[in-house]
């Protein structure tokens, strides 16, 4: 196992636990809905109830310069994680987020989509930029070194595990990762976690709630 791989596994183990806790919170919220006691905001995806401060971070942005989450107050931030060599899950999430923005019309300018790489070794800023901007020119990709990215994955409970593709020459790896979308409200609080497969209508519904607050 290479050093990089070990780092992934370490980060992965740590964050799997957190991911489970976060998912648990979502499940409790959904159970509350089923039981007939709607959460205060009426979100359709998993809600953080009560809301908690979104872990702040700063990373190099594909648009140039640094992105710092706490400087985006006033906008709803949709935060997602993935990598450019991922043809199925990652483009699906980005396409769904672009549909959400398209359907918001003029208020889309108050929604910032931020896409954080889970593949620091291969996701150069140029690759990530081409990848995210094909869906929407306003999407920001964030990439950096393992040391810069791993704490962000951990803070959001995003599980990341690098896996070698058997029999590939030269050796190729894929990355197993959680693909939830996090919604951060206009005052910097973590409000919603939408697991992969959440209908676009539900995402749009929840973003609209945050824009109206």
């Amino acid at each position, binding site marked *: 196992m290479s050093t990089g791989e070990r780092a992934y596994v370490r980060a992965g183990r740590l964050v799997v636990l957190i991911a489970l806790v976060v998912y648990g919170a979502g499940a409790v919220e959904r159970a509350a809905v089923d039981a007939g006691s709607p959460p205060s905001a009426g979100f359709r995806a998993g809600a953080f109830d009560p809301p908690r401060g979104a872990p702040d971070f700063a990373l190099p942005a594909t648009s140039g310069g640094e992105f710092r989450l706490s400087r985006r107050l006033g906008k709803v931030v949709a935060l997602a994680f993935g990598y450019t060599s991922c043809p*199925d899950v990652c483009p699906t999430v980005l396409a769904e987020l672009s549909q959400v923005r398209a359907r918001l019309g003029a208020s889309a300018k108050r929604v910032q989509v931020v896409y954080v790489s889970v593949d620091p070794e291969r996701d150069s800023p140029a690759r990530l930029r081409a990848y995210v901007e094909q869906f929407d020119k306003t999407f920001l990709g964030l990439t950096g070194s393992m040391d810069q990215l791993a704490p962000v994955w951990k803070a959001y409970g995003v599980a990341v*595990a690098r896996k070698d593709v058997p029999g590939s020459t030269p050796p190729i790896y894929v990355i197993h990762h959680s693909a939830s979308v996090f919604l951060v409200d206009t005052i910097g609080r973590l409000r919603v976690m939408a697991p992969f497969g959440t209908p676009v209508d539900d995402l749009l519904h929840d973003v609209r709630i945050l824009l109206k607050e």
Partner: protein
Amino acid sequence: MRTLAALSLVGLIGAAGALAQDAPIRLENPWVRRAPVMPDSGPGTESRAAGYVTIVNRGAARDALVSAAADVAERVELHETRNMSGMLMMEGVSRVAVERGARVELKPGSYHLMLIRLKRPLTPGQSVTLTLQFERAGPITTRAGVR
């Protein structure tokens, strides 16, 4: 004469319809996800795109998708994404079985075609040619729009 022509036209359409109906495997709603051609950054980073289609087996026997090709890619692999409690995992598969009378959807987050080493960027509005190879039914070609 005109009646005869009309009759044979009806006959032809009927025959074409019968052929389509008799085809054991039908492909529905084929499409390919958009993809840019990005600068290479090592093994596994050649540009790729996912292809999706619904396979309907109306034949008398089970069949299986065993390989695929696309005009815009150097090669195509069959892949499956699995969702393990929110962790998304992608793996190659050697075949996708389609039972008699079954519909199997290749769709995001599930089975999909992985088009590898694209010859050009794929942008919405374009279309690509996919050829799906079935164990019993043989090759079936379809045009898939880029979305």
